[in-house]
């Protein structure tokens, strides 16, 4: 068997195309929505209201206690039996956002709790309300603490979006699968897709380091 170099080069196009039009927008949209959701859930979890806190805890428990693939299938294949039919893209974005929301909520909660109580008090003593103190004093400090763990969540998400191929979203891995099925060159196609995922994650890791350095500018080294 000769190595099929033509296929290697010709298949990079659709694979990278799938990353640009599928994997990357899916990751960005899900992460943005998921992060907003996570902040809300973290605040509910920290709320003195026991009911709100319990709701948040239940949500996090369900998300972390069930496989992402099952969550994805419940939304795409399960909901239609309740009369809710969603297209592949919205299904994927909802599933991944909910998933990020659950994991990142715990990260954000821990980060908020890591800011010393004296910072809240200093905010109050200059006249700030709780929400004002949270936004201007606490969250900027919590953000710095949560960059490394949230970067992990983000990088995991990039790879997890490959699961969307199973609900017919056209993204990096689904393109690779289709070419592989057609050409029967499974090794080449799957290694190629692995390589593209890896490169994306390398770029993100570099971005993470840069962000950490930027946010570290006010901390003693």
């Amino acid at each position, binding site marked *: 068997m000769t190595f099929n170099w033509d296929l290697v080069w010709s298949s990079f196009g659709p694979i990278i195309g799938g990353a640009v039009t599928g994997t990357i927008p899916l990751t960005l949209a899900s992460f943005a929505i998921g992060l907003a959701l996570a902040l809300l859930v973290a605040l509910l979890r920290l709320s003195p209201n026991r009911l709100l806190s319990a709701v948040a805890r239940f949500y996090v428990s369900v998300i972390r206690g069930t496989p992402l693939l099952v969550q994805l299938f419940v939304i795409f294949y399960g909901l239609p039996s309740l009369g809710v039919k969603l297209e592949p893209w919205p299904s994927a974005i909802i599933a991944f956002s909910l998933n990020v929301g659950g994991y990142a909520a715990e990260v954000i909660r821990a980060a908020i709790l890591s800011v*010393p109580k*004296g*910072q809240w*008090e*200093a905010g*109050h*003593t*200059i*006249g*700030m*309300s709780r929400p*004002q103190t949270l936004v*201007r*004093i606490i969250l*900027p*400090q919590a953000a*710095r603490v949560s960059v490394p763990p949230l970067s992990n969540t983000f990088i995991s998400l990039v790879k997890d979006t490959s699961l969307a191929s199973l609900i017919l979203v056209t993204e990096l891995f689904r393109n690779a699968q289709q070419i592989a099925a057609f050409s029967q060159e499974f090794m080449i196609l799957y290694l190629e897709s692995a390589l593209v995922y890896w490169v994306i994650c390398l770029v993100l890791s570099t971005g993470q380091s840069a962000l950490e350095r930027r946010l570290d*500018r*006010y*901390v*003693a080294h």
Partner: protein
Amino acid sequence: MSPTEPSNAPQGNSGLVLSARDLAKAFGSNVVLRGIDIDVRRGQVVALIGPSGSGKTTVLRSLNGLEVPDAGTVTFGDADAGTVRGSGAGLTLDFAGPVGKREIAALRDRSAMVFQHYNLFPHMTVLKNIIEGPLQVQKRPRAEVVEEAERLLARVGLADKRDAYPFELSGGQQQRVGIVRALALKPQLLLFDEPTSALDPELVGEVLGVIKELADEGWTMVIVTHELAFARQVADEVIFMDGGVVVERGPAAEVLREPREERTKQFVKRLQHDV
């Protein structure tokens, strides 16, 4: 909340910035305040001293709403006490009933706290630390606030640290910024919670020097401190607390030099031995 006149208020309380009555507070089963009264007149410096656990810090924090007493009242200023901030009107909080956010906010409006551990905002430069409250809370014009901040920084000898981050400063410098942050709010009353306790001994002097200057300028202050020599120097009145009650109070020289109560004698003696 209806304004109430403290039952034992001095007649014609003009010049009275703060008057607290019967402050009581327990943390669970641990009773820390058992009915504390404090009066502070305009320009007066009151030093709260006492062993740790005596409740002196809780009293101070209650005056700023960082601690909410279980009972008692805090009354702020009569109309003409307003050295500064717009609302000169009196304010009384009665902690026996429920106290809302708005009342606590009004209380905080009138005083500013300097913390033992400075509690500067680490993600903001020195200047931003100082102008945050005046700008975000008091909504004063930026140019005025920045100019004021720079003037105050120069006064405490930190003009060149305007754009530094707190971690780049020594403890003494950080505390001086903490004091400027409080001053920039133009409060009626300055509260100091053991302002030099976290400092290396050689840095204590620069901070006490600044506080002394403020006292000389006529700022009204309540200071929780272990520095008895300093208290004697700047305080008009010294209040010695122990076990959640005021054991003795009076002019600084009297209380610190010739205490009447046995507990005060022991405390003063012990602390002076330490020094």
